[in-house]
């Protein structure tokens, strides 16, 4: 047998030894008479071999021994070990698409950065790489969001769902915000490129100025125009609507989660107070109508 095989731990032997030692240990423990610390050393009048705790212990030991003997069968151990062996494989299967997506995102990002450097696209926003704007949200949707949408079970199901919804909406808000800010920065990048071209043009015409304000005003004018054009593009309008919607959904999810907490402390939640406000509003409105009728 090679040296490496000698050092290798045989899982079957290890598992068998562990089961045996555990059974011995708990069997020996069971032999001790139950006697709480400080108790008198008097015989049990009922004649029972052990007090109440001992009986429970004995019953538990019997269950353990039955379980251990089943586990100790070679076919069970082999099956369990196979399961353990497949665990890393399973993890790799889960992680692989996530890593592939991140790598894909990185590549697209680099490609976009390259494009931005190459194309100035004067006063145009139709060449905006839409994939870059949505890539994080697509990745989150495809790979992460599903974990927060795993159906919850049991008594605390609704609370857990609200907590998960809060985290989900928070992530969606971050994603929408990132897209929105990315779009907002675009005019600066474009202005930089156009400004360079303008300088080259002025230089050719020999119209350059030695006044720094001249350059600032020229840069500002380009930036202003770029923003005006950006704000009318469908990309901007879509990102604006998305970020507003995401912020609204996030606030709503946060409120629901906080409301759960407040209820535990008998503190009126915003939903409770809103009900009072609504009643108050209708009462005042009815009062106003009656008041006007009386005055007229």
């Amino acid at each position: 047998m090679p040296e490496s095989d000698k050092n290798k731990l045989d899982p079957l032997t290890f598992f068998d030894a562990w089961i045996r030692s555990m059974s011995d240990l708990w069997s020996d423990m069971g032999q001790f008479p139950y006697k709480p610390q400080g108790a008198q050393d008097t015989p049990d009048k009922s004649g029972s071999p052990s007090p109440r705790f001992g009986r429970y212990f004995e019953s538990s030991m019997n269950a353990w021994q039955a379980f251990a003997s089943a586990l100790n069968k070679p076919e069970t151990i082999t099956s369990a070990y196979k399961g353990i062996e497949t665990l890393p494989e399973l993890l790799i299967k889960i992680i692989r698409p996530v890593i592939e997506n991140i790598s894909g995102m990185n590549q697209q990002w680099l490609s976009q950065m390259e494009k931005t450097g190459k194309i100035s696209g004067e006063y145009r926003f139709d060449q905006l790489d839409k994939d870059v704007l949505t890539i994080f949200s697509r990745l989150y949707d495809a790979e992460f969001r599903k974990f927060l949408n795993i159906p919850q079970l049991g008594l605390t199901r609704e609370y857990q769902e609200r907590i998960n919804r809060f985290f989900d909406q928070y992530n969606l808000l971050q994603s929408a915000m990132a897209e929105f800010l990315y779009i907002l920065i675009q005019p600066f990048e474009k202005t930089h490129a156009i400004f360079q071209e303008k300088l080259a043009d002025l230089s050719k015409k020999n119209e350059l100025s030695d006044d720094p304000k001249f350059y600032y005003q020229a840069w500002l004018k380009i930036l202003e125009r770029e923003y005006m054009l950006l704000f009318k593009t469908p990309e901007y309008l879509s990102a604006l609507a998305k970020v507003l919607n995401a912020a609204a959904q996030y606030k709503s999810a946060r409120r629901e989660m906080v409301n759960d907490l407040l209820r535990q402390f008998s503190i009126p939640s915003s939903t409770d107070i809103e009900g009072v406000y609504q009643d108050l509003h209708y009462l005042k409105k009815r009062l106003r109508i009656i008041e006007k009728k009386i005055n007229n």
Partner: protein
Amino acid sequence: MSKSGVPVDLILSKLAEDTGKTQGRAQKAYETLLGQLETGIAQTPFEFVFQDDRVKLKYYQPENRSDDSVKTPLLVIYALINRETMLDLQPGRSVVRSFLDSGIDLYMIDWGYPTEKDKYLTLDDHINGYIDNMVDFIRAKHKIPSINIMGICMGGTMSIIYAALHPNKVKNLITTVTPSNFDTDQGLLYTWMKGIDPGNVIKAYGNMPGDLMNFGFLLLNPARLMIDKYVGFMENADNKDFVENFIRMEKWIFDSPDVPGETFKQFITDFYQKNLLIQNQLHIGGKFVDLKKITMPLLNIYGKYDHLVPPESCELLTGRVGSKDTEDVCLETGHIGIYVSSKTQKEFVPKIVSWLKQRDGVKRTKKRNGQGES
């Protein structure tokens, strides 16, 4: 000269020449900013004469009345966005002061700061509730059947609705930078508002946060409003008058009350998205807002360079109302400039005062569509 062609050497030498001057200015700016600054706004004396919930009615009493002064009091209805203090920003550029100097009894609605409990207030509550109560108060106090109303921006839109629903209580109507036609692509606000879901926003925020709206207004022109404006401030930080006026304006701009949720939702849906008012299809509080019932004289003033309420949004109104006595005035200024620029101060209030004088004391005897009053 550098490779790019920009005379960097010349620019640097110019900057070096200016270093001495800059140091002196920086020292003066330091002294100005740390010194005593007079930056108070809304300094003209007034008294609160009526209050309905958080909404108060300000009364400005004119010091000098003459025989030819306008006798009918004027109620100014400001927008629910920002505050009415804009009309009294600084001495020498105060619309309030100019009206008082001409002898007009001036009333102005202070909408206060809506809180969460106000989120269910609708346009009906504002128009047929608060505004109507205040108009009734002024009518009773002066023992007159109708008063003059001047609306500003969204307050102008509410004034139009009020005049259509209560024509017998309005003697003359003046709308200033008032949006009435929302089907335009001239202003970014109109484009943006068509794409948002106000119900969703209100569900989350309750009221529409003033800060969020202000951020939206800054985004209308970030190059000027977020960069150039403050570059200008730094360049003039050694000028005490400039600094004081700049801070007054900053105080006003960022003093933004929240807008009651239901009102915001209704305004975006019925006005920006459906454009019901100018199409004569609007209902408020279950009542039809018929523009043809606006039979009193109407003066419609707007700014040629207004990027918030462009001329296209204002100029249709006079052709859609029932009144034959209408006038459009387009001033060479923007949305705020109409009230605060020193140039328009010489045109804006004098125009309104002379227009009112011509119609003050004139009784409307001819009834149109059965809605006129004598």
